[in-house]
C-alpha cells in the first residue's frame, strides 16, 4: 500500500517535471498539452497501481489465477515406486493448503498418477497412495477433509508420451484440480 503511494507520488512528480521541461519550450500548444498532461497524470495514477502489481504483490485477479504465485503450480512429482513428498514441492502444497484453509468453500481433487512401468492395478494403488500422501500433508497444514478428494488413474493418463526416464519423471505425479475456488 505504502509502496503504491510512493509510486503514485513519483509518477505525479515525473509528470510535473515533464510538464515543466516542456513548459520551457514555451508554446500555447504546449499549454494545452499541459492540460492533457494533467489529465494523463490522472490516468497515470490508475496505471501506477498496475506498476505496483508488476512488482509482485498487488494481483487484483483471483489469487488462484496469479501466474506468479505458487498457487499457479498444480503438480507435484515423485520418485519411482515412492509416495514421499519431495522437499522441492512442499512450498506448493503449503500454498494450496493455506488457500484452502482460508477459503472453506474451495475444494480440490488430488489426482494420483504413475509412470507406465510395472503393472496397472499396482499402479492404481500406487497413484492412490501418492494422492493420499498429498491429502495428509495438506490436511496437517489446515485444509479440511471435505475439501480434499483423492482419485487415482495409475498409469492410464500419462502427462507425457514416450518410454524414457524424461517422460516417466513427468508422469509420476499428483495433480491438484480445483473443483471449486
Amino acid at each position: 500500500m505504502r509502496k503504491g503511494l510512493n509510486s503514485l507520488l513519483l509518477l505525479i512528480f515525473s509528470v510535473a517535471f515533464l510538464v515543466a521541461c516542456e513548459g520551457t519550450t514555451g508554446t500555447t500548444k504546449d499549454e494545452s498539452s499541459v492540460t492533457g498532461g494533467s489529465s494523463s497524470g490522472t490516468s497515470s495514477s490508475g496505471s501506477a497501481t498496475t506498476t505496483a502489481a508488476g512488482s509482485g504483490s498487488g494481483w487484483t485477479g483471483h489469487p488462484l489465477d496469479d501466474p506468479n504465485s505458487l498457487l499457479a503450480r498444480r503438480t507435484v512429482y515423485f520418485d519411482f515406486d515412492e509416495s514421499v513428498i519431495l522437499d522441492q514441492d512442499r512450498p506448493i502444497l503449503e500454498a494450496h493448503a493455506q488457500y484452502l484453509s482460508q477459503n472453506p468453500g474451495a475444494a480440490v481433487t488430488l489426482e494420483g498418477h504413475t509412470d507406465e512401468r510395472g503393472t496397472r492395478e499396482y499402479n492404481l494403488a500406487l497413484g492412490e497412495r501418492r494422492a493420499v500422501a498429498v491429502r495428509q500433508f495438506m490436511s496437517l497444514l489446515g485444509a479440511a477433509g471435505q475439501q480434499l478428494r483423492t482419485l487415482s488413474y495409475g498409469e492410464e493418463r500419462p502427462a507425457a508420451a514416450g518410454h524414457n526416464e524424461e517422460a516417466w519423471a513427468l508422469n509420476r505425479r499428483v495433480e491438484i484440480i480445483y473443483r471449486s475456488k
Partner: protein
Amino acid sequence: MIVNVNRRLALVLCACASMLMASLPRTGHAVLTIRITQGIEGALPIAIVPFGLQAGAQPPPVDVAQIVANDLTRSGRFSPLPFGDLPSRPSEASAVNFADFRLLGMNNLVIGKVRALANGRYSLEFRLFDVFRGAQVKGYEFEAAPDELRRKAHQISDIVYEALTGERGAFDTRIAYVTEKKSAAGSRYALNVADSDGFNPQVVLDSKSPIVSPSWSPDGSQLAYVSFEGNRPRIFAQNLSVGTRQVIAAFPGLNGAPAWSPDGKSMAMTLSKDGNPEVYVMDIATRLLKRLTVSAAIDTEPAWSPDGKSLVFTSDRGGTPQIYRIPASGGQATRLTFEGKYNSRATFAPDGKSLSLVHGDKGTFRIAVLDLENNALRVLTKTTLDESPSFAPNGSMLLYATTDAGGGALAGVSTDGRVRQELAAQQGDVREPAWSPFRQP
C-alpha cells in the same frame, strides 16, 4: 419435461442399438493379426487338405482347412504342408494314397468335406489319419449354421491338437483386450472380445474413460472390468450375450482388480474404502464383503488358485512389491517371491503348479513363470515393458501386453519359452489381454 422424456427415450434407443451391434456376427474380419515369430524346431509335419465341396453348390463362407492349418501353425508345435505342395487332394478315406504322404515325411493327414444342406446349414465331416500306419485316428461329423463354421473349424483344430499332443486344445476360446485410440479430441477406450485367432472382434464397451482389468467369469458368459466412467473407478460385470451389465463395486476410493472365483460365486477385488488398498472377497449373490488382507501397505491384484482354496496377491509390505499367498478363508499371508525388487500381478497356471507374473529387474519388466514346487523363477520374455500375463486355459501359452515402436501391443509366448507370437492391432494401442476359459461346446 418433454425434453427429459425424449432424452431418456434416446438413451434407451442408443442402448438397444449398441446391443444390436454387439450381437451382429461379423465373420471373417480380424482387427488383431497373429503372427508366429518363433516356432519349435522339429514341429510336427502334418498335411491338411482343403476340404472337398460338392459340385455346383454355393461354397461355404470360410475356408475350414485354412483355419485349421493357421491354428496349428500358430501353436508353434505343428508345421502344416503348404497347400501348393500337396501330392493329392483327397476328400474321401478311400481316395487317400498314404505312400505319397509318407514320401513327403508327413506324420499325419487331415481331410474333410463341406456340404450345403437344404435348410441353409452346412454339414462338416473330417478325418485325421496316422500316415505311417495308414489308419484313421479321429473322425467327426458336425452340422453348423454359416456363421458357426469358423468356430467349428477351431473345434476341429482342438480335436487334432489333443489327439496328437495329448493336451487339450485351446483354439475354440476367446480373448478380451482393451484398445485406446488417441486423437486431438482425446482418447477413446474400448473393451473388445475376439476369437483366439483375433477374428470376429466385437466391441463390448466403448468409453471416453480408461478401462482396465478385464476378468472372465468361469463359464465365459460374463466379463468383469474396471471402468472410470464418471471420473471414478467402478467394477462392472457384463453379460456378453445380452450386453447388460451391473455395478459390482462402487465404494469410495479404489475399486479394482476383479477376479472371479473358480466356482463363479465370489469375486476377489481391491478396495481402499477402509483407508488403503486391501484385498476383499465379495459373495456376488449377497454382496457381502470379507476382508482378506490387513496391512498398511498396498495389497492388490488377487488371483485364485484353480481349487479356489487360496489366493495370491501383490503386496509391498516388505518394502517392494512381491507376491504373497493367503488362504481364501483368510489368515496368514506367506511370501512366495524373493528374486528381484519387483514381482507383481501373479496368476495361477490352470494346473495350479506354477504362477505367471511380471518380474522387474534392473529397470526391465518381463513375464516370468514361478514354479511353486521348487521356487525356480524363469523369465520368458525379452522385451522391457511387459505386463498383464494371461494363461491359455490349457496352460500352453501366455498372452501378455508389451510396448513396441508403435505403442501398446499384445504378444504370446509358450510356457516353455520356445514359441513366440506377435499380435498386431490394426490401429491404436492394445493392452490388458485376458484369455477366456474353455467354451462349452
